[in-house]
């Protein structure tokens, strides 16, 4: 058996629907069609009445989910693309994220965001919006990078009593495969050291974990052992695991696919600089996408986001500092 990242997301939803009658799925084209990426394929037939097509109304989709959560349900909202969650932005950050703090009523909704860039998708079908949601109090923001995490973190997200922004990376949907689904896994909130090393630490998440691992492989050929930390969750951030890694290596490169100003990478560096300053042997560095909208043409797109090559050259500079 071999299961993709996408199939893991589907399986997690199938399991949640089967195990918990409070779970339902709401989103555009999620029923008969099975979702734009087929993440809900077959679920409307298997769970009649619990997988519902929504009109093109992201604000109302999330508002409905919040109302249902107040009544004890566990809605999963699928955005057709992460980018369209901008329409639901107000309901997410002001209604869902504040409900528990204001009223004591938990708001267990999971909003699935098909995120990140793929070639030819352009400025409005490629965004990584984790930093926006992480900035607002009251949300949990997850960025699984592996098939196993996609599965187990989605299940855990649905079970959490809080609103979760679940950023799935579209580039991983079909390409990433695992042998089987995990039975146990690290809990949400813990980062994972996916490759250990001694010369520098890369802290990253989502699809950039794979580019970073490639870059680490290239560095190994040059004799450098690079540790790679997959954050898994960007809100909260597991600062302890990050600091422990930097303590081992003394060097930090934070890598993210999002826009450069104020994203996960700056938050990671700010934390390490503040809490682990003495662990650092040289300036921490970061690598993000460029500060323009995400280009549509693959020639430009490839140069807009970090890749194994650009991470490799950043690392090469870093280990020489």
């Amino acid at each position, binding site marked *: 058996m071999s299961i993709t990242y996408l199939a893991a997301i589907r399986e997690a939803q199938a399991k949640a629907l089967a195990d918990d009658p409070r779970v339902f799925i709401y989103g555009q084209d999620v029923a008969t069609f099975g979702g734009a990426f087929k993440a809900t394929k077959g679920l409307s037939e298997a769970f009649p009445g619990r997988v519902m097509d929504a009109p093109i109304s992201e*604000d109302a989709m999330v508002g409905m989910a919040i*109302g249902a959560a*107040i009544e004890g349900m566990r809605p999963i909202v699928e955005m057709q693309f992460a980018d369209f969650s901008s329409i639901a932005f107000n309901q997410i950050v*002001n209604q869902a994220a504040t409900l528990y703090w204001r009223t004591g009523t938990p708001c267990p909704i999971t909003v699935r965001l098909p995120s990140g860039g793929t070639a030819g998708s352009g400025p409005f079908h490629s965004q990584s919006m984790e930093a926006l949601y992480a900035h607002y109090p009251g949300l949990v923001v997850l960025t699984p990078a592996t098939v196993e995490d996609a599965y187990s973190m989605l299940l855990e997200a649905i079970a959490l009593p809080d609103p979760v922004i679940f950023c799935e990376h579209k580039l991983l949907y079909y390409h990433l495969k695992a042998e089987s689904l995990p039975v146990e896994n690290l809990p949400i909130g813990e980062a994972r050291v996916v490759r250990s090393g001694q010369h520098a630490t890369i802290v990253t998440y989502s699809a950039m974990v794979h580019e970073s691992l490639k870059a680490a492989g290239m560095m190994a050929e040059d004799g450098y052992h690079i540790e790679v930390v997959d954050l898994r969750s960007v809100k909260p951030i597991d600062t302890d695991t990050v600091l422990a890694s930097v303590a081992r290596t003394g060097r930090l490169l934070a890598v993210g696919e999002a826009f450069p100003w104020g994203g996960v990478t700056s938050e990671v560096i700010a934390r390490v600089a503040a809490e682990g300053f003495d662990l650092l042997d040289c300036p921490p560095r970061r690598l993000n996408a460029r500060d323009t909208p995400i280009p549509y043409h693959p020639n430009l797109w490839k140069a807009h986001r970090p890749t194994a090559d650009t991470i490799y050259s950043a690392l090469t500079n870093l280990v020489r500092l």
Partner: protein
Amino acid sequence: MSPVTAEKFITTYRWMLLARILEDRIASLYRAGGAIVGGVYLGRGQEAFSAALGVHLSRERGDVFGGLIRDMAGRLAFGEPLLDPARSYLGSAKGPMRGRDGNIHRGRPTEGLPAMISHLGSLVSVVSGMLLAKRLKGDPPCVGASCVGDGATSTGAFHEAMNTAAIERLPLVVAVANNQYAYSTPTSRQYACENLVDRAKGYGVTGHVVDGTDLEACLDIFERAVTAALETQTPQMVVGKLLRLSGHGEHDDAFYVDPHLREESSGRDPLTVAETHLLEKGWGTPSDVDAWTADAVERVREAMTQAQREGGPDAAVETWEALASRHLVEGGNA
């Protein structure tokens, strides 16, 4: 429809009276300065429309009342404890929002009283979601009300929610209080249709119009609308015309309100209209009204006194946790 009974009329009138007296008290404390925390926005002029909706909803049936800025009367009629607004306005830590949010935002979501956020229009879909959940859970039929003003009908959130509720055939009563102003903005700068009820057909929902200053008419229309929502399981849109008989908030002298509007029938004070009506019908005497007033004054005095004795929230014991999953809360500063 059953004609409006004396009993129902009087019950509703007394909720209106209670709301008015409470809000008058809050407004005078606000003007005096010091006691009231936050801004003060009154339901003056909207009491008949709001209370007539509130009395037709039932907490026992599982109904939901999604009140907005000017729904003191409706919230109380639906069953909100008088102490909730008293505590909110006076900043008591014992209020339903524990000082974290306040006043018009107060609510008890799990008791059918969702707590509005400021962003207008955004509560309509939340009430809809509550109704959807009740249906999915197999709860007995119930009704949810969501209140908006003329201004809120211009929001995208209102539109998306109305359309979605219509598609899902939810038993939603949307009460549009057209009080002819959104803050200072007259309806000529808010919409270009003849009557906001013209939107009902465009959503495929049933529309109703009513003179929002006339309690009897309001009771009649909301009885119809709530019954229709319950029986047909489809949304109902009720547009009431009335006039905001205050500033937008108590900081606002409403200099911009066209004085002619006060002369029109929709500019009447619904409390006066109701009082005249019940006296004319012989449903009560002036001394009954005096007694009801005295009772309301006393209830308000009690609630306000109690709330005022209670202290405000203490920052030192506040947990500063925005998540129910306590293990995922971050400190934040470093």
